[in-house]
């Protein structure tokens, strides 16, 4: 946060979004329920989760997309517009994991209306590696617009 506005011309394919890490402590799991208002017990009740065949409670969709949104909007700056965000939740991020939220620029292009950048974004954990792969499209300001 607080960097000068990133413009489309500043971006190159291959640029890395360093992102951030979050330890999934029980407090973080409580913040998840508070932040998403998702009270489905598989995300906070360890007995319920195990009865369903899961190894433990795990973070929900709202948390995952909040983390990916933070990654992308921090990178895009105030004038960036997140046009699209998609992701697959292939393996769960469990209580006790420390997740890393990262990204990489894969494509940039212009059309009549926008200067756009495509990103690979993902969340990884030490057990499964990239358990949540995704991608995003961001519209950035252009100095030549």
């Amino acid at each position, binding site marked *: 946060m607080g960097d000068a506005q990133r413009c489309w011309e500043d971006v190159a394919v291959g640029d890395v979004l360093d992102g951030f890490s979050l330890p999934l402590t029980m407090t973080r799991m409580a913040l998840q329920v508070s932040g998403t208002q998702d009270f489905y017990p598989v995300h906070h009740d360890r007995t319920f989760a195990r009865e369903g065949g899961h190894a433990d409670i795990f973070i929900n969709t709202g948390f995952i997309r*909040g983390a990916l949104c933070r990654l992308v909007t921090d990178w895009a700056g105030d004038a960036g517009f997140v046009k699209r965000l998609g992701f697959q939740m292939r393996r769960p991020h469990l209580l006790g994991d420390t997740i890393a939220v990262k990204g990489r620029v894969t494509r940039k292009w212009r059309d009549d209306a926008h200067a756009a950048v495509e990103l690979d974004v993902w969340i990884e954990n030490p057990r499964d590696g990239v358990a949540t792969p995704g991608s995003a499209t961001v519209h950035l300001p252009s100095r030549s617009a």
Partner: protein
Amino acid sequence: MTIAYDIEAVRTMWEGHETELAWGRYPVEHDPIRRYCHMVDDLNPRYLERGECPPVMVDYFASAGAWPPAELDIIGLVRKIPTPGNRLVNLGHEFEWFRTVRVGDRLGAFHRVVSIEQRATRLDPASVWIRTKTTVVDGERRVVAERVNQIMVHQSVEEIARG
């Protein structure tokens, strides 16, 4: 349960089903945004100081919320579709945004069942995969965002063991 489950009948009944437009219980508000940002340590002043709604929260504000009891987002719709189990796991999400939303805006949403499939997972050989599309609109009924969600409904370990 698995043998009796008629996926084709369920698909015929539910694929293409669309809900009525329903409005969020409250307009976009600062405090839920603050709690959401707190969850992932997001300090972005766009959201915390300037009243912009994080794009991934538009469906949150288009929903009635968890209390008083109401149909929450797609959960009420998914619960109406017959499935062998009743445990939910979300598997995928695809959002596209068309407008920026701000504190005070009123949002609503309607949902459509895109597809229903039965496909085994590591949790349940009789898992049912339900794909939905949600359209979020603002107070002037302009489309703010579209969201495609993939949810999987499965049985518990005990239910599978019972057969």
